[in-house]
């Protein structure tokens, strides 16, 4: 097998081994490649930053095992930012995995910033019905959630005494994105009631969300890269910034593979043509 054929047929174990190294080594020895903040992420940050104190945010935490690596860091950075700005957050989940991630991610941040459950934030849990569920929540929260995840009736939660429906909600955030909920929030919250919407989609859903930016979606914090940018904006470096060097090096390896494969292909075509 000639060198041109070898370039087109690099063994899978070698591809995978180098991929593992490009992902893991930068996590142990960070390089610190500078990160530019995308206008969509900055816009999301500014929307939250400009909300008056005490504004109510409805956060659909649809994070799950398949999406947490991409959007988990952005979720935590945004929750931190909102608590810092003294916003009130209502957590709901259109996906069944979401409530577990709210329970894992939010209480430590709330505790660190001195936020009180029931007063500064509430966790209402999973709702079924996707778009119909979203519509029902915006019409009347108690129609879907008579109680929170701890089985406390919502009328006993101080925050929920003041929040009944869409009229009291200033911003909705959707995080996750392997389903259609992303568009459902735009249709039901923004189009129907004019509520500002910010999205935290996984990578494959960024281009799906972009047609709605900036008119119907005020900001998009896309995937791990968006999370890193948000961490940078909140001046709170975390797992997303740490992952950016890995992302850069692994992408460089994938691009190298594509280039090598094509060099092999073009060269073998040229050699066949000349012979």
């Amino acid at each position, binding site marked *: 097998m000639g060198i041109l054929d070898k370039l087109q047929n690099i063994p899978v174990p070698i591809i995978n081994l180098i991929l593992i190294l490009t992902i893991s080594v930068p996590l142990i020895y960070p390089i610190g490649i500078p990160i530019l903040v995308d206008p969509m992420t900055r816009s999301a940050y500014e929307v939250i930053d400009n909300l008056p104190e005490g504004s109510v945010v409805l956060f659909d935490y649809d994070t799950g095992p398949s999406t947490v690596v991409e959007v988990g860091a952005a979720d935590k950075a945004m929750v931190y930012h909102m608590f810092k700005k003294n916003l009130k957050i209502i957590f709901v989940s259109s996906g069944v995995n979401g409530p577990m991630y709210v329970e894992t991610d939010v209480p430590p941040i709330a505790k660190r910033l001195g936020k009180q459950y029931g007063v500064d934030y509430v966790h209402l849990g999973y709702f*079924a019905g996707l778009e119909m569920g979203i*519509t029902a929540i915006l*019409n009347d929260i108690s129609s879907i959630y008579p109680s929170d995840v701890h089985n406390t009736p919502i009328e006993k939660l101080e925050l929920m005494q003041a929040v009944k429906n869409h009229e009291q909600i200033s911003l909705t955030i959707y995080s996750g994105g392997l389903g259609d909920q992303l568009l459902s929030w735009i249709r039901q919250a923004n189009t129907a009631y004019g509520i500002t919407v910010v999205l935290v989609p996984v990578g494959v859903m960024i281009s799906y969300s972009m047609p709605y930016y900036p008119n119907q979606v005020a900001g998009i914090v896309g995937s791990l890269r968006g999370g890193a940018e948000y961490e940078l904006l909140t001046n709170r470096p975390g797992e997303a910034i740490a992952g950016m060097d890995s992302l850069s090096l692994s992408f460089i390896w994938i691009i190298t593979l594509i280039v090598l494969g094509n060099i092999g292909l073009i060269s073998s075509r040229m050699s066949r043509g000349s012979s």
Partner: protein
Amino acid sequence: MSQTFRRYIPMALSAAVGFITIITYFFYFPLVIQNASSALVSWGSILTAFAQGLGTIFLLRSHARRVIRRDQGEWIYSLVIIISTFIFPVLFFTHGDTSTLYKTLYQTINNNIGAGVWGILIFALTGAVYRAFRLQNLNSTFLLVSCLIVMLQIAPVGGVIWSGFPILGNWIMDIPTTGGYRGIMVTAAFGLIALGFRTLFGYEKGYLGGEE
């Protein structure tokens, strides 16, 4: 079962529910109709939850049959599904979903398996990209070049290599991609409106099941 029960009553119900929820969105009606519309929307969520429960029963029934029949190479996996389906509800009712046991089991099993399965995808994708992204013709060349530019826009190292990569990548995402998606979405929305009207007026019968 007569046509009345199988076709006409479900169609009439669908049309009535559809009309009430649509007209109360566009026009102001007495409070009783507005409340009826809100209640119908809430029922949608409840019905979905009920359908999920029903789906779980069908899933368990199907896998229980495989276990009983000892289907070669399949029954053991079906048994795992049955046991897994019961673990979390049992723990939910005995310990609650905020208990340490529930959280630990969830995080050590569901989280790790889920993240692991999705993590493995990167290896499959890298291999696939290496083999598929070849300059075969003009279309594949456009696809390949766009892909490389967008990858270098997403990865911070792209801006370090050349400051033009983020600009070019943003242009690809903002103009051709967004424009194309907008066209597809608007067209799909028109199709959805047409489907909605067909359903409301009883021309669309696929959702009732059986023959058209």
